[in-house]
């Protein structure tokens, strides 16, 4: 399923930031005293939070924890497995 290009780019940016955050999360689990990694993790965390808020404000819910108009917006398409990420196929 095709989605608006700007929306797709923003979603992919969120996915990339979220991945970086998870990678630092795992590293910090076994290196809890690494201050440099902590600083990067916290920086990504703040950027991610801001970008997610922008995306949810502009396009769609990422989680159900949002204030919705009627009808309930959470059920709107597309679901993640339906999206054409425009990487060269579908």
């Amino acid at each position, binding site marked *: 399923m095709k989605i608006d290009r700007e929306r797709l780019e923003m*979603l*992919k940016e*969120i*996915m990339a930031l*979220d*991945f970086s955050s*998870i*990678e630092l*999360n*795992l*590293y910090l*689990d*076994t*290196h*809890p005293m690494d201050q440099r990694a902590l600083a990067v993790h916290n920086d990504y965390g703040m950027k991610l939070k801001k970008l997610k808020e922008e995306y949810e404000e502009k396009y*769609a*819910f*990422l*989680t*159900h*924890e949002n204030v919705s108009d009627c009808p309930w917006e959470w059920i709107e398409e597309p*679901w*993640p*497995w339906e*999206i*054409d*990420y425009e*990487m*060269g*196929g*579908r």
Partner: protein
Amino acid sequence: MWIYEKKLQFPAWVEGNDLRIAKGLFAQYGGPDSELSAGVRYLTQKYTMPLNEGKAILTDIGTEEMAHWEIIGTLIYKLTDGLDPEELKKAGLDAHYIQHGHDVYPHDAAGVPWTAAYIQAIEDPVTNLSEDMGAEQKARTTYEHLISLTTDRGVIETLSFLREREVVHFQRFGETLRLVQEWKDSKKFY
């Protein structure tokens, strides 16, 4: 607890020129060394794991495995969505179609359903973490076999991402094992 986020961890995509790889991908969806096995294994072992580092790593890697399970499911879905029974038969999925239609059912590449017998949890943290390290290597090898069998650039790119994650998880489990061994040694008095 968990909360669903309406996104994938990686933008899984397929070219769709190699439908036969869909059958192979079931190895990582419901096979012995699948993402499902990994997730259930780690999320089962977390309760008795000593050390905060150990509890965190099993919870967090276990959670990431569920996201990987969804990525494999997405690849299979994208490859098979809309295929008619004749096309599924050519892709080697006639038995799958008879029993599951287009549903992404957790079985391995040969159609054997997923079972908890694929995983172990036996309380001893050294034993459990050793199993986890082995599991990550087995999954890495499975990804290499899958990558060597397809020409679909989307599948290769997505599986390459997942393969790298196995390497990182192996590293983190190795560090956790070292922490557990140091902790065990610190409790011995001579």
